[in-house]
Structures are given as C-alpha cells and as structure tokens.
C-alpha cells in the first residue's frame, strides 16, 4: 500500500491554482460590490459558501435585479453536485461529527479534484490540505475585491481563466483509466457540451454527474 499523503501534499498539489483562486476571489468581490451587494455580504458569502461559480451566479442575478428565488435557485443548483460528492467521499472522513462537519466545508472542486486517489476515492489529508490553502486565498481575494476595486485587473488578461480547465483536464486524464471511466468521461463531457447553450448555469455539470447513475444499473 502506498504511504498516506500529508496535508502538505494536498496544499502543494493545489498550489498552482492558489493565485488564480485569489484573483477570481478579487474579481468576485469587485462584481459583487458593483452589483449592489454591499461590502460585508460578499465577504460573508465567500466565507460560508466557498464555491466560486455559484457566488458569481448569485451576484449576476442580483445585479440584473432578479428575485431571491432566481439567485438562490441558480446558486444552489450549481452547488448541488457537492451533495453527491459529499456522499461519495463520506468514507474518507474520520473523527467526531464536528470535525467532519468543518472538514467537509473545505470541499470545493479544485480541492476535491487534487484529492482523488483512484477508484473514485479521495484522500482526506489531500482534500483538507488543499482546502486550507484555497479557502484563505478565496476569502482574502474577495475581501480585497470589495475594498480595492481593480487591484489585480482582469484575471482574463493573465489567462488565469484557462488555468481551471487545464487543471481539470490533467486530473481527468490521470484518473480515467478503466474503460467504464473513459465512457463516463466522454458521456459527461458530451452532456455538458450539449446542455451548455440551452440550460442555466450548473445544470450541465449536474446532468453530467447523473451519468454516474449508469453505474447503478450495471450489476
């Protein structure tokens, strides 16, 4: 059996994304404040929700004058996958319920992705190490954003938005070894692609996750 990973391994694995996460945190802070959310609410949101896509979605709906239902609906839909991810990774967590509760809050796409150790399982220390690095980057970025406006400028000018698909791609290739996994990946990617132009944000990813239900019927 390979030696267990350490928290530092998790932090090191996700470190390439930390600057990008901070920059997008700044971008979120700027967007939220210009959307009329005030200064405190965006920071609280970053600290409690800790999920970039849904925070951007909520801020966008608020900016466009949408209802509470529309903003909450979009954001919650975008985060629905964390319910499945939490159930799938549950065996990896240990300790008291309080501890499991707090450690589970560090679940975010990038931390979950770098914590994968094959077979759909994660290593808890990788997840927590990665999450503990990403979380302050995200919240600090958001705080800078609401106060500092355009400190870092547009993350897209630095190409940082390409960092995310690049990371997910590398991890996808690393983890997709069995034929069923390849089929699931192809199906998931196609579902997401087809739904992108016609479904609201979040639905493509959740629908792709539904592909895994195919595994339920195979036995």
């Amino acid at each position, binding site marked *: 059996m390979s030696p267990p990973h350490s928290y530092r391994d998790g932090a090191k694995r996700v470190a390439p994304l930390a600057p990008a996460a901070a920059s997008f945190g700044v971008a979120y802070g700027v967007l939220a404040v210009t959307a009329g959310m005030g200064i405190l609410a965006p920071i609280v949101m970053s600290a409690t929700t800790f999920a970039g896509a849904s925070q951007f979605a909520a801020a966008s709906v608020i900016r466009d004058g949408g209802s509470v239902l529309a903003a909450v609906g979009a954001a919650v839909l975008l985060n629905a996958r964390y319910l499945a991810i939490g159930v799938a990774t549950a065996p990896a*967590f240990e300790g008291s319920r309080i501890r499991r509760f707090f450690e589970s809050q560090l679940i975010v796409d990038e931390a979950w992705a770098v914590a994968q150790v094959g077979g759909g399982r994660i290593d808890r220390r990788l997840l927590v190490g990665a999450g503990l690095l990403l979380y302050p980057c995200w919240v600090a970025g958001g705080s800078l954003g609401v106060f500092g406006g355009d400190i870092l400028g547009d993350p897209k000018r630095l190409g940082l938005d390409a960092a995310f698909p690049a990371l997910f791609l590398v991890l996808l290739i690393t983890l997709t070894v069995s034929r069923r996994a390849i089929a699931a990946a192809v199906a998931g990617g196609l579902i997401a692609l087809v739904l992108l132009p016609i479904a609201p944000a979040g639905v493509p990813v959740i629908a792709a996750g539904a592909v895994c239900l195919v595994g339920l019927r195979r036995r």
Partner: protein
Amino acid sequence: MSTTWLVVLLVGGFTIAFKAAGPVLLARRTLPPRLTDAFELLAPALLAALVVTQAVGGKEAIVLDGRLVGVGTAIVAMCLRAPLIVTIVIAAAATAVARLL
C-alpha cells in the same frame, strides 16, 4: 431583510448542508457496492463536464475564446510529461499571449 442578505444566508445554508450531509451522516459506513460503482464514475464524468464548462462555457452559450489556446497548450504539455504546475502556468501564459495578438 434585504434581497442580498437573504440570498447570502440561503445559499450559504444550502451549500453548507450539501457539503456536510455525506461526511457527517455517513462517514465510516461502508456503502453498498452498487453505490460505490456509481460514485467511481462520478469523478470522470464531473471532471469532464468541468473541463468542458470551464473551457468553452459562457452565459448559456458556448464561447470559443483564448481559453482554448490554453487548453490546447496544456494537452501538448501533458504529452511531453510536464509537471502539473508547469502545465497550468504555460496554459495561462499561452491564453494571455493569444489574447494580446
């Protein structure tokens, strides 16, 4: 309560509950094999969807932009067995350069 704070509190509440439900309620219980089979496919399917939505996703549209240059560069870097951090930095740099041109 203002719209903004209502949204922040509701989204926060749901998200916290989503993330905690599995680990708090289920940890240490072995799941039936059919479920673990299904969850084993969750990672490839979700990762593929995340690649697609992050690479070409726009506002309810497919948007082909500089990100594709970065993703293409990442593929090349991977074929050359570059380390992860190098791959990502190169991807971001390639996209930035492509946007300058």
